[in-house]
Structures are given as structure tokens and as C-alpha cells.
């Protein structure tokens, strides 16, 4: 007990050291816990399936004509026939005046099934926003507010925060339309979607008489069977199982999130090691005295382990609390990405997430155990009778760096092997992890080499510079781990930035190539009507229809998968817009004659349809060869492309889901657009020109990566905090050096300059190493991870612009960390400093 108190008292004297250790453990946990919880929450949402007001449809009924709406009369007729477990749903995507793309769901609240014990009467009325008491059924707002003026727009509080819409406000759409007043609705699993009355939504979006789908809720088998049997020809029954499994669809995304969490964990582990190493080095003297006093190594080890356990538990709990908060904060962003990229929806919880404390804590305990191994062995095996010499310490540091370099080099070799062979996401992520860790582990030795080279270049007469370089090498001993941690964070940040920049550029040029029509119509117009009108009004302009459908097929890997099938208009502009990355001979000619299909890059990479293989398109067409592979950025589903003629012969009942208008550039396209809108009574979002569509595409892209970037920035931020802690600790240790310099007659100003130069140099050298490793990481992300994760590949564009930013951040946080303890140092008198050295 006395022993425990003696050892623990160290942290009483140096509370900052305890704080730094705790910070390391917390940093290791926060993002790990955050991403684990986000993924768990998403998985929970996937397993419950898509719900509307907590009601779970067992199937949906959609139009057989493809992505078209159903006349609501058909729904009413089904109700009148006695099929009462149905509810209408209208989905509309609109843009706000802030340029935000939002999804509105129009429902008939009177038709929605309600959970048992939750009568409509308990839909108590307005004025109970956000569910003051979420446990109470009465927290549901009144159905009347949804169907009576001024109507209401229900949304989860998290989504409202994200949109920045205060309760009661009436958001304005791009076209000036005002939405009903906003009402926060907690615990209804609304997630990313916004709910309002179907009639109101029809009015707001000029979709009178339209519903997007009919939700089918639980009923007796007999009733559901009868419904299927009596469904009119124009309607199609869709089992939820026929749809893509959202968990499968988003697997890559969640793995990437988890990888981010792990990265932060590794950064935290470096900091834990750093803090532990200091705390032990500091207590060498104390430990030696205890050993002299007769305490056995075993006793010391037990107490030191106990101490670590306390830190791990407290740190993990703190990290868990922060991580849980982080998860709740980030979830809407994740939900936005999932909604825009995959069209799947997750619920946003209105309270802190719980559960899953075990895994991060066990991981932290193991990591801390490994971290403590080396410093503890060193501390316990220290010669009892002599004080350690600084030369001995430097020797061990140099040896350690050599060993680290060897491990790092081995990891880098492994990364190269994985980069060449990887065909699964796990291997790709393994490649990335090996590269990151390898880079970090090589850092100290490389820095040593750089400093050595620099000192050889400096003339021997430059005493101070020589000292600076020599001392910096010495400094590498304690500072290496902290520098490795920040390098890790910087490399991943630089790599991700380069990757995303390149990807964006690739998407941009791909969009420019593929968007050949000047104006796109998404309304359900009659093709003939538009064509006739164009012949009169703008004879130079022609119309091309867009046809799509979906089909479940078995891929060559033997897995049932959903593919999107799209028809390519039979026109030179469209045919030229498709660039093939792989193809068979005379692919385009065969495609034009309907003798084969093109498959998207994803279908080729992930579903393994190779050019030359045959696919079953439809009963009428027989087996058709795969003629080529094209890029399809941003599409999370595999796609087949066929000629329009072939599409029509396979699915004559499917009507176009949209149109493109093409023609020479001399046409007054803006004027034509205006006339089209007024002639066919089109809403702003139903007639879009090329530039707008590009802008929408790229804004979706940007939002998709916003969470990734946010997490990345967070990693950098927590690393900076860790670096700050670590460097402060190191610097505090080096006060005696400063004393020596003072005694040698250096002025305060000179010492300060030397200090800043020294750390600035280390920071700069780090950045020099970060750039090549960052670019390498970007390449791994672009050429290894993304292709197996999403089925997209793109060329890497070297990116320089972020480097100065990173350099500034790295050097800045290093200098700040040095500056604070230095202030105290600079003020101290040489005598004081020398006394401290003597202790």
C-alpha cells in the first residue's frame, strides 16, 4: 500500500504527466468508439429495415412502368376493394434556397399503422416539440397538425440541427415555395427524411394525383396473397428482399469509417507509449531507490500494472463518453452520405448511444500493455547501483530507431505485396495500414539520417548550428514517438486530401463527358407531345429518352445481385460519351446493333463480369456477350448499359423516366427551357440544364466525402493535442540542457531562437517525409482501396496545395507546445536551472 502510494505520488508531483497519459488513452478511444457506435447504429437501422413513423412495410407496390408515379386513384380503389393494410407515399427531392438537396416524404397519417397501445388520441397536439418526454406515448404530436393548416413538416431534431432550421420556421425552396412550419419529432426514426402530409407535398411540388409507391403493411397471408393476385397490371409488387440489402450495399463505407477509427486509435497508442515512457524515465531514480530499499521487481511490476489499469479504465470511460457524444454529433452527416450515396436511411438517435464499451477497452488494455512492456522492462532491469548515463540512453534510442526502421521497412514491403495482390477490401485496408504504420516506424531513423547528413554539411566552425543538429539527434530519442504520431496523422490527412481531390477531378471530367444533353427533363411527360412541340418550336433540337430498370441476376461469382439496366439513346453524342476502359473488338458496333451489353466498372471489378462473358438480359434476348466496361462514378450499384432499341424490345412496358434534349450550341437554350417549363407546366426541378446537373452531381460528391474529411480533420486535431502534450513533456525534461546553455552565457533571445529552430527543423523534416508517404497513401486509396470498396478507379492527380497548410499546422503545434514551458524556462535564473539539474 505504501509502495502504491509512493509510486502514485509521482503523478501528484507531475499532474501534467498523468494528464498526458490520460489524453493518449482518451484519444485512442474517442474516434474508435465514435466510429464503432456510428456503424452499430447504422447496422441497427438496416436490420429493422426502412420504417415510416416506426411502421415497417412488408412490401411496396410501384409502377410497372419504371420510375414513374402511380395515379392515386389506383390506391384508393385498392382501399375500397378492402386492402386496408396499405398507405400511400409520395417521395420528392427538392432543393432549398440554400442549395441543400432534401428528401420530402408525403404520407397519409390516417392510413399509417400505429404501434399497439398508441391510439390516435395520444397523438396529442402541437406544442410538444421534440418529445419533451420520449418515454411517453403522448410525446407524439397530434396528427391534426399534419393535415390542418398551417400544416407541419416533421423532422428529427438532429436533422433540423443539421439543416439549421429552428422549430416553427418555414423553410424556403429554391423556387421560392415555402414549406410548412417545422416541427421536431423525436424517436420516430425519421433519420434524414422530412415528413409532411401527402396532399400538402402534392401541392408544393405540383404533383397532384401522384403517389410514388404504396406501402404494404403486415396483414394475414391470405389478404396479402389476394392483394398480389388482384393487383392491376400497371402496378408491380416489390418484396423488400428483392431490394438491395442496405447492410451489404454500405459495407465498404462502414469499413472505411472503422478504418478511420482504427487510425486514430493507433495515433493514440503512440501517444500512450510516449506518456508512459516519460513517466517511467522520470521515476527511474525513485524505482532505483525502492529497489535499493529492498522492494522486489515483482512487487514493483504489480504496482505499476495496477497503476496502468486504473489509467486505462478511467481513460477508456472518458473516451467512451466523448466518443458517444461524437457519434451522435456525426450521425446526421453519416446519414446524409448514406442517403445521397446509397439511398438508404438510418435513424438518428436523440440520446447518447450506449453499448460496445467492451471492445475499445480491451483494445486499449492490450495496446497499453504492449506500450508499457519496453519502458517497464527498462525501468525494472536498470542497474541498481549506478545512475544511467545519457550516452547509454542515446545508444538505446539509436538502437530502438534501427529496430523500428526494420519493422517499418518490413511493413512497407508488405504494403507493396498487398497493393499488387489485394482483391478484397480487407487486404486493401491492410495495405493502407501497413503503409501508414511503416511510414511512421521508419520516421525516427530517417530523421536521424537527415540530421546526420545536415550536420556533416555544416562547417565545424558553426558551433551553435552543429550543437543544434547534434542536440536535435539526441532529442529524437524522446521525441520520436510523438513525431511518429503526428506524421501518421499528417500522412493520412495528406493522402486523403490528394485522393479526394483526384477523385473529384475524375468525376468532374467524367460528368462533362457523359452529360451530353443540354437540357434534362425529369417529368413524366409524353415523349410524343414533347417531340411534336419541339418540331414546331425548335426544329434543331431533338429529344432522347432515358430508360432504366432493375433486375436481380446471379453474377459470375455465384452471388445474386441487383443490377441497374439503362438504355443508351441511339445517337452519336450519347455513344461517343461512353468511354470504354476494357473492350472486345468492334465493341461499339456490336453494341449499336443490340448484340451485347456494356457493364459498369463496378460490375466488372466487384461482380466479375469480364468482357467476352455472356449475360442473360431478358427472356427475349437470350445470352448476350459483355462488350466493354465503362466508368460509372458515384453509382453504388452495378449497371449494365444496352442500346435503346434492345431495351425497348426487352421491356416494352417501361416508359422513359426522363428525357434529354440535344442540339447545336446556337440554340437559345435558356429561352427554350423557359418555354418548355411554361408549356408543360414543369417545376424548376423537373427541367434542369447541363450546368445545374453538373453542379448537383459535384455537390453530392462533396457531401459524400464531408464525413470522411471531418473525421480526418478530427484525427489531425486530436493528434495535435497529443503532440502538444508530448512535446511539452519532453521539453520540460530538457530544462537542464537549457540551464547548461545559460551557464555557457547564451542570452534568453539566443536560447529561444535555438529552441524554436530546433523544433521547427524537426517539424520541417517530418513534413518532407510526409509528402512522399502521403502521395503514396493517396495512390493506395485511389488504386487499391476505392476499386475494391466501391468499384471505381481513377487517376491520381498530385496535390500540393494542402502541404503548406499541414506544414503550418505541424510546425505551429510543435512550436506552441515548446513555447509554453519555455516561457517559464526563459525567466528562470541560471542558478535555479543548474540546481534542478543536480536533483
Amino acid at each position, binding site marked *: 500500500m505504501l509502495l502504491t502510494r509512493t509510486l502514485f505520488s509521482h503523478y501528484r508531483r507531475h499532474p501534467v504527466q498523468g494528464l498526458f497519459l490520460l489524453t493518449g488513452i482518451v484519444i485512442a478511444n474517442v474516434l474508435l468508439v465514435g466510429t464503432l457506435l456510428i456503424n452499430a447504429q447504422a447496422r441497427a437501422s438496416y436490420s429493422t429495415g426502412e420504417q415510416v413513423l416506426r411502421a415497417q412495410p412488408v412490401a411496396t407496390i410501384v409502377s410497372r412502368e419504371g420510375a414513374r408515379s402511380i395515379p392515386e386513384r389506383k390506391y384508393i380503389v385498392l382501399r*375500397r376493394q378492402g386492402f386496408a393494410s396499405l398507405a400511400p407515399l409520395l417521395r420528392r427531392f427538392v432543393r432549398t434556397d440554400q442549395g441543400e438537396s432534401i428528401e420530402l416524404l408525403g404520407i397519409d397519417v390516417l392510413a399509417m399503422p400505429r404501434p399497439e397501445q398508441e*391510439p390516435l388520441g395520444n397523438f*396529442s397536439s402541437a406544442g410538444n416539440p421534440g418529445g419533451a418526454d420520449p418515454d411517453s406515448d403522448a410525446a407524439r404530436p397530434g396528427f391534426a397538425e399534419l393535415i390542418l*393548416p*398551417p400544416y407541419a413538416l416533421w423532422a428529427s431534431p438532429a436533422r433540423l440541427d443539421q439543416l439549421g432550421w429552428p422549430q416553427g420556421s418555414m423553410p424556403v425552396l429554391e423556387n421560392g415555395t415555402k414549406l*410548412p412550419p417545422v416541427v421536431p419529432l423525436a424517436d420516430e426514426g425519421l433519420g434524414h427524411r422530412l415528413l409532411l402530409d*401527402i396532399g*400538402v407535398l*402534392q401541392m*408544393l411540388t405540383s404533383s397532384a394525383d401522384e403517389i410514388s409507391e404504396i406501402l404494404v403493411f403486415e396483414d394475414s397471408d391470405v389478404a396479402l396473397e389476394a392483394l398480389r393476385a388482384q393487383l392491376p397490371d400497371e402496378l408491380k409488387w416489390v418484396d423488400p428482399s428483392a431490394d438491395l440489402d442496405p447492410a451489404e450495399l454500405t459495407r465498404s463505407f462502414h469499413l472505411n469509417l472503422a478504418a478511420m477509427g482504427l487510425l486514430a486509435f493507433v495515433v493514440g497508442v503512440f501517444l500512450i507509449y510516449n506518456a508512459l515512457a516519460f513517466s517511467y524515465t522520470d521515476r527511474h531514480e525513485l524505482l532505483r531507490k525502492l529497489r535499493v530499499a529492498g522492494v522486489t521487481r515483482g512487487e514493483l511490476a504489480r504496482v505499476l500494472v495496477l497503476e496502468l489499469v486504473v489509467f486505462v479504465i478511467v481513460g477508456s470511460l472518458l473516451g467512451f463518453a466523448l466518443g458517444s457524444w461524437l457519434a451522435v454529433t456525426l450521425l446526421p452527416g453519416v446519414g446524409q452520405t448514406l442517403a445521397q450515396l446509397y439511398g438508404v436511411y438510418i435513424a438518428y438517435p436523440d440520446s447518447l448511444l450506449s453499448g460496445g464499451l467492451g471492445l475499445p477497452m480491451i483494445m486499449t488494455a492490450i495496446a497499453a500493455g504492449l506500450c508499457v512492456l519496453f519502458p517497464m522492462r527498462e525501468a525494472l532491469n536498470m542497474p541498481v547501483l549506478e545512475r544511467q548515463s545519457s550516452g547509454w540512453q542515446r545508444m538505446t534510442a539509436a538502437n530502438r530507431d534501427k529496430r523500428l526502421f526494420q519493422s517499418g521497412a518490413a511493413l512497407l514491403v508488405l504494403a507493396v505485396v498487398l497493393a499488387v495482390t489485394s482483391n478484397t477490401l480487407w487486404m486493401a485496408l491492410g495495405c493502407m495500414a501497413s503503409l501508414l504504420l511503416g511510414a511512421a516506424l521508419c520516421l525516427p531513423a530517417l530523421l536521424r539520417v537527415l540530421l546526420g547528413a545536415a550536420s556533416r554539411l555544416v562547417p565545424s566552425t558553426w558551433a551553435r548550428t552543429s550543437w543544434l543538429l547534434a542536440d536535435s539527434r539526441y532529442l529524437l530519442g524522446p521525441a520520436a514517438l510523438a513525431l511518429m504520431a503526428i506524421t501518421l496523422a499528417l500522412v493520412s490527412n495528406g493522402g486523403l486530401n490528394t485522393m479526394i481531390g483526384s477523385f473529384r477531378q475524375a468525376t468532374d471530367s467524367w460528368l462533362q463527358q457523359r452529360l451530353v444533353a443540354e437540357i434534362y427533363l425529369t417529368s413524366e411527360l409524353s415523349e410524343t407531345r414533347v417531340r411534336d412541340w419541339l418540331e414546331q418550336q425548335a426544329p434543331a433540337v431533338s429529344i432522347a429518352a432515358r430508360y432504366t430498370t432493375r433486375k436481380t441476376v446471379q453474377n459470375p461469382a455465384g452471388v445474386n445481385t441487383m443490377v441497374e439496366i439503362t438504355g443508351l439513346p441511339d445517337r452519336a453524342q450519347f455513344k461517343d460519351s461512353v468511354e470504354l476502359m476494357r473492350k472486345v473488338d468492334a465493341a461499339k458496333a456490336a453494341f449499336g446493333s443490340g448484340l451485347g451489353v456494356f457493364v459498369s466498372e463496378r460490375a466488372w471489378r466487384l461482380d466479375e463480369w469480364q468482357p467476352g462473358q455472356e449475360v442473360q438480359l431478358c427472356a427475349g434476348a437470350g445470352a448476350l456477350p459483355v462488350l466493354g466496361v465503362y466508368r460509372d462514378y458515384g453509382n453504388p450499384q452495378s449497371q449494365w448499359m444496352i442500346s435503346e432499341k434492345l431495351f425497348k424490345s426487352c421491356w416494352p412496358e417501361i416508359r422513359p423516366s426522363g428525357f434529354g434534349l440535344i442540339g447545336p450550341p446556337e440554340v437559345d437554350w435558356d429561352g427554350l427551357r423557359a418555354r418548355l417549363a411554361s408549356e408543360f407546366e414543369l417545376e424548376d426541378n423537373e427541367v434542369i440544364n447541363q450546368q445545374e446537373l453538373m453542379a448537383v452531381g459535384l455537390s453530392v460528391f462533396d457531401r459524400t466525402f464531408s464525413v470522411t474529411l471531418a473525421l480526418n480533420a478530427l484525427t489531425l486535431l486530436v493528434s495535435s493535442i497529443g503532440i502538444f502534450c508530448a512535446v511539452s513533456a519532453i521539453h520540460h525534461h530538457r530544462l537542464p540542457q537549457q540551464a547548461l546553455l545559460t551557464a555557457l552565457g547564451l542570452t534568453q533571445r539566443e536560447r529561444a531562437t535555438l529552441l524554436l529552430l530546433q523544433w521547427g527543423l524537426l517539424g520541417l523534416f517530418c513534413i518532407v517525409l510526409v509528402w512522399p508517404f502521403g502521395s503514396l497513401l493517396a495512390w493506395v486509396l485511389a488504386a487499391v482501396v476505392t476499386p475494391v470498396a466501391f468499384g471505381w478507379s481513377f487517376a491520381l492527380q498530385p496535390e500540393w496545395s494542402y502541404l503548406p497548410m499541414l506544414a503550418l499546422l505541424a510546425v505551429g503545434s510543435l512550436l506552441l507546445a515548446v513555447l509554453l514551458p519555455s516561457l517559464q524556462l526563459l525567466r528562470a535564473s541560471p542558478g535555479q536551472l543548474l540546481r534542478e539539474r543536480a536533483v
Partner: protein
Amino acid sequence: MKAAVVVALLLFCGLTIAACSQESESQATGDVALLAQGMEGFSQAVPGYEFSFPQDHAPHPDFRIEWWYLTANLQDAGGEHYGAQWTLFRIAMQPASEQSMTNGPETISQPGNPWLSKQVFMAHAAITWPQGHAGFQRYARGGDHDGVAQAGAQAEPFAAWLDDWSLHSAGDEWLPLQAKFREGDTGFQLRLDSDQALVLQGESGFSQKHSSGSGSYYYSQPFLLAEGNLTINGQEVPVSGQAWLDREWSSQFLQPGQGGWDWFALHLDSGEKIMLFRLRKKQDSASNGDFQHGVLISPAGVTTRLDSRQIEFEVLEYMRLHDRRLPARWRIKLPEIGREMLITPLLEDQWMDVDFAYWEGAIEVSGSNAETSGRGYLEMTGYPPESD
């Protein structure tokens, strides 16, 4: 003439702006003042209305509340007794004059969208059989979707419906009627006919509900003979018996101080019909006692009205159902016409466990002779749940 309280509760809970707690029933009947406030813009029922048929079978959208209410006392071939209920409520959520918005988005003010109809319909249906009871509810809005409405009512040919639950003329004439509902493996299909005329309740069809003079328009067809099938847990049971149709509309049923009511519709073995109701004053109300009314209808359709003083209700025994204390057996004395009857439910638990819950069920009427024996239906509303 029934279930007004139920509708009042709906109005209170769902349709007024004030918050409504989970003990909705008790509170609703406990503060009916809110109902009175919302009457502006609606037509009021006043004495002297000239009924005209078939038009008055159709909805009266200017009035706030309206219903088509059918109950039937039925027997199978083996002599077992059954009950059946079919009700369609119409509730105007807002007066027609307020149907264009004033404070919402301007763009929603265009009229004509069927979903934005302010006429909301609620349907209840129930069956009682010797071993059990099952009750159901549905809701829909009344707009016309390109020639089809999910819920509504019309005069010629007569029809009232919500989804496939319907009450409608079998041919061009008002009678015979067909009534049907189905929910899962429970439902019924009844054919209803009579050669007798409609009966106007109250004073030429104006039924007073409060001493202050407020009331409703109310007519009945108590002489319906019913024949058809009940489906109970998937089993078809052919039945026949007597049925009673009530039609009532008003904008104000309850006055402050009225807490709920008990309603009787009796088919006597003598061929006579009796309708009785008691609007109970709230316990803390200062108003002067319960408001009671009744009518004796001779086999020929001649009515004799009974006022409060001529009706004596006595609860002989209570039952405990769904945390509530409800009358189980009654003695009713009508000294003016020399009747004394005992009322016993066909089954105690005929509780309608719907959003706005109430007791509605088949009853047995017993007395010393054919003028005091028979079958009927009883509705009891406004009995608050007791927390202990």
C-alpha cells in the same frame, strides 16, 4: 342516436389545438367548454328544420359532426344471440369558410386537392357472440380522387362507406340496405329491410341535449329486419334479427358540465321500440342534474316522448372493465307508461377498445310481459379510468 360523446372526444383530442393527455376520456368530458368555443363557422341545429329525403341521408358538411349508426340484435339457427355494430362518423375539421389557409404557405391555398379535404371519417365496427366481442376502427379523409373517395356518403342511391366497410341501398330505393365490414377473419354482411317509415326523434327531428336548448338533428329507422352472415374467427354464422339505424348531426352535442352518457335502444317483444338516454352531469358541475329523454315508438310508428321526470335509471350492479367502473345491470322504470325493465348485457366485456374507447353492446331486456322484455343495444361513454 348514439356515440356523441365518442365523437366529442375525438374532437377534443385530435382536432382542437389544446394538448390532450393520455386520460383523454375523462379530461375530454371534463372540459367540454373547448367544444363550445370551436363552433364558429359551423351551422347550428335549431328546432323547426324541415327534413327532406333522400337528401338528408347524405352528409351535412356545414355541421361539425355527423353519423350513420347501425346496431343489430341477431340470432343463429340454434337460438344463440349475437350483436353487431357498424358506424360511420364524419367530422369537419374546420368550417368550410376557413378551408383556405391564412397563415401557411400561400401555395397550399389552392383548393381541390382531395387529401386536403377537411372532412375526416372514422368508422367503427364490432361483433358480439356468446363467447366474445371484437371491435375495430378505421380513418380516412373524404376527398374525391378522380371519381373515387376513400370515405364518404351520398343520398341517391344511398351509400356510406370507408374503404370496403359500407352501408348502402341494395337497389335504387333507400330500402333494403346492405351493411358489411371485414377486418382480418372477422366481419359481417347483413341485408336490412323494413316496410315502415323513418321516425323523427325529439321535436320533429330536433333532439334537445341540454336544458339550455342545444341539440342535434336526429332520425331513426328502428324497425329494420336483418338477415345475413357473421364471420367470427373465420367461421361463417347465418343469422337473422332486428336492427336499428340512427342518423344524427350537429355542431354541438355537449355543454360544459356534461360528462358522458348512457344510451338505450330497445326492441320489445310487443313490437314496440324504446329509445332512452341520460346525459350525465359531471360530478363537480353546478348544472342542475342529468339530462334525460326517451321515446316510446308503437309498432305502427307512433311516438310518445318521455321527459327527464318520467324516466328512472337505477344501477343494480357494477362491473370492472379496462380500469373503469361501469354499470353492469340496470333497472329502468317508466312509471308514466307503466313499464319496469331489468337490463343485462349479453356479455360483460363489450368494450370498444378503439382510440376513443367506450362500451357498446347487445343487451337483454327482461320484465313481466312482452311490453317489458326483449333485446337491444346500450352505449355507455365518459366513464373515466380509475387509477387505483
